[in-house]
C-alpha cells in the first residue's frame, strides 16, 4: 500500500512541514545511519529557500503560547546558489536521488520550498530547481508579505492566480502552492492557485500572531522590556495544537472546492489528527511543530494510519 501524489509514489501520507525539520542538521545530531534508516517522512520538504541568503530575524525568535508556538524565524537560508551546491549533494547521500537510495530502498523524494518577492524572482528559483534531478517537486511559499502592501502575496486570489500563471512554465516538476491562512477565503485562493496551474496546494501556514515580553512576576519579567514586543521580528506565526481546529476547517473548505491534491497540516500530533485531515479530503498530511517535541513524530503518526502501518 502506498500513496500517489503528483506522480510521486510515497510509502505513506506523512511528510514534514517546511521549516520544521532540517535533515542535514539532524544528520549531524543523530548520525547518517540512524537518520537514513528511520527517516520519519515519506517525502522531505526543505525550509524555504530564497534567491539571496538570509540571516533571519534577531532573537528572541520563539514564544510559547497555550498549546502552541509563535515563531518569528524570518526564513534564514543560505540562498539558492549554496543550497544547490552545498545542500543537494548531502541530501542525495541521505535521502537518495534518481539513482536510488544509499544502502538500498526507494529514495525519499525532495520537495524544495521556495519564496520570492516577485514573479521574476520566483521564475529564477523555479528554473534553477527544474535543472536539479535531485529535486522531485517544488513548493511555492506565498505567505511572504508583499513588499508594497505588507499583505501576504497569497492572500489575494487575483494576485495569486497571476503569480502562479506567470511562473508555472518555469518548471515541469510538480508545483505545490502553499497557501496562507491569513485570508478571508482560503478556498478562493486555492481555486486561484489551481487556475494558475498549480498541481497541488498545501495548508495551513502559521496564523499571524504576537507576544509581549513577560511581566513582573514571570522570570526575567517586568523591568524595561515589560509590555514591549517579545519577538525580535515584532510579530510571528502561531502553530501547533492551538491551530488544529482552524486548519481542519480550512483544509476541508479547500478540499471541497479544488480538483488537485491537498497537503493538510496544522497541529497534527497523532494519527487521529492526521486521519481527520485525510477524512476531509487531504491526500497528504504534514507534521510540523510536533517534530520539535519528538524528531520521530512523523513516523509515529504514519505508523498509526491504516493501511500504511506495515510500511513504516
Amino acid at each position, binding site marked *: 500500500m502506498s500513496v500517489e501524489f503528483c506522480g510521486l509514489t510515497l510509502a505513506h501520507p506523512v511528510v514534514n512541514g517546511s521549516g520544521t525539520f532540517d535533515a542535514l542538521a539532524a544528520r549531524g545530531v543523530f548520525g547518517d545511519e540512524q*537518520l537514513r534508516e528511520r527517516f520519519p517522512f515519506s517525502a522531505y520538504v526543505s525550509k524555504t529557500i530564497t534567491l539571496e541568503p538570509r540571516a533571519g530575524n534577531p532573537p528572541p525568535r520563539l514564544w*510559547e503560547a497555550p498549546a502552541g508556538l509563535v515563531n518569528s524565524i524570518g526564513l534564514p537560508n543560505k540562498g539558492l546558489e549554496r543550497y544547490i551546491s552545498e545542500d543537494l549533494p548531502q541530501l542525495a547521500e541521505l535521502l537518495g536521488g534518481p539513482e536510488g537510495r544509499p544502502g538500498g530502498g526507494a529514495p525519499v523524494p525532495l520537495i524544495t520550498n521556495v519564496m520570492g518577492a516577485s514573479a521574476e524572482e520566483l521564475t529564477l528559483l523555479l528554473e534553477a530547481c527544474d535543472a536539479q534531478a535531485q529535486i522531485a517537486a517544488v513548493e511555492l511559499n506565498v505567505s511572504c508579505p508583499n513588499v508594497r502592501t505588507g499583505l501576504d502575496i497569497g492572500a489575494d486570489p487575483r494576485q495569486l492566480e497571476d503569480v502562479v500563471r506567470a511562473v508555472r512554465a518555469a518548471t515541469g516538476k510538480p508545483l505545490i502552492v502553499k497557501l496562507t491562512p491569513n485570508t478571508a477565503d482560503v478556498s478562493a485562493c486555492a481555486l486561484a492557485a489551481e487556475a494558475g496551474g498549480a498541481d497541488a496546494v498545501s495548508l495551513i501556514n502559521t496564523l499571524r500572531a504576537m507576544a509581549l515580553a513577560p511581566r513582573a512576576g514571570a522570570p526575567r519579567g517586568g523591568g524595561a522590556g515589560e509590555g514591549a514586543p517579545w519577538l525580535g521580528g515584532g510579530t510571528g506565526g502561531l502553530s*501547533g495544537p492551538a491551530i488544529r481546529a482552524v486548519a481542519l476547517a480550512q483544509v476541508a473548505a479547500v478540499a471541497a472546492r479544488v480538483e488537485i491534491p491537498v497537503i493538510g497540516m496544522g497541529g497534527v500530533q497523532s494519527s487521529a489528527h492526521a486521519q481527520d485531515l485525510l477524512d476531509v479530503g487531504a491526500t497528504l498530511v504534514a507534521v510540523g511543530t510536533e517534530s520539535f517535541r519528538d*524528531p520521530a513524530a512523523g513516523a509515529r503518526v504514519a505508523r498509526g494510519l491504516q493501511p500504511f502501518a506495515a510500511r513504516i
Partner: protein
Amino acid sequence: MSLAPFGRRRLTVTAVERLGAYSLLRAADPDGPVPAPGQFAMLAAVERWGAGADDRPYVPRAFSVARHRHAEAHFLLEDVGPGTRRLAELCPGEELWALAPLGRGFTAPDEGRRALLVGGGIGIAPLAILQDTLAGEAGEDIEADVVDVGRGAPPDACDVTVLLGFRDRARAEGAALFQGARVATDDGSAGHHGFVTELLAAELERDPHAVVYACGPAAMLEGVRALCEERATPAQLALEAGMACGYGACFGCVVPRRGGGYLRVCVDGPVIDAAELEQIDEHAGAPA
C-alpha cells in the same frame, strides 16, 4: 561528541533531591550514550506536560547534563517557570521524555594548561561533569568522555580550578556538586562578597596561560568574555537560548555570531568559542 538516539525516549525518574535553591533530578538512562561535558538533553514530563501557568509548558525544555554515572543522568534544575516547576515536582518512578545527548560540549585544554571553570547560578550544572572529566575522576562511564574531551588520548588528570558565583547562600549550596570550588556571592552570604568575575580576574593575573570554561547568566558570560578577550585567554562559553527542538530543526535558538549572521545554540553550541561571539546577548545566558 556523542550522537543521540533518534527519537525521544522514556526515562524513569530515580530521585529528585533539594540542593539549596536547586533540585537535582536523577533518571535512569540505560540506552543513553554517555554525554560529553557540556552536552544537554531536551526533557519533558510524560504526564501532565502543560496546564501550568498560561497552559504551558508545551515544548520540551533544555537541561545540561550535570553528571552521568552508572547509566544514570543527573540534571540540576532551578524553578523559574512552568517547565522547570513541573520537572522539579516529579517523583521517583514517574517518567520523562528525553532527547539526548545534544549539542557540542567542551574541548579539553592543551596538555599542561590549567582549566579555570567559571560558573554562575544554575550555569554551574555543565561544569560539574566537566570537572569530573578533566580531574580524571573517571567512573567507568566517564572514561568514554575523557577520550572524547581529550580528543583521542585520555589526558593525565589536568589542573582544574573551579570558581562559582551565586546570588545568595541558598543557591551557593549548589557548590556541593564540586570538589574544592571557590565561591562568591552577590550578597556576601557565602565566600567572596562580589562577582565571580573578580575571582577570575585574580586567577588570570596569576596564570595567564589558563583556559577558561564558563556557563552562567548573560551578564556574567559577557564579563568573562571581555576579561578573556583583553588577555587573549582562550574561553569556551556554554550559552543558553529559548529552544523548541534542541536538534537544529526550528532555528529558534540563535545568538549573533561575530562578523554577522547567527549561530544555532543547539547545534553550533551550546559551548561556543568566545572568539566566535561579540557581546553576549541578554537572552543567551542562564536565567539570572
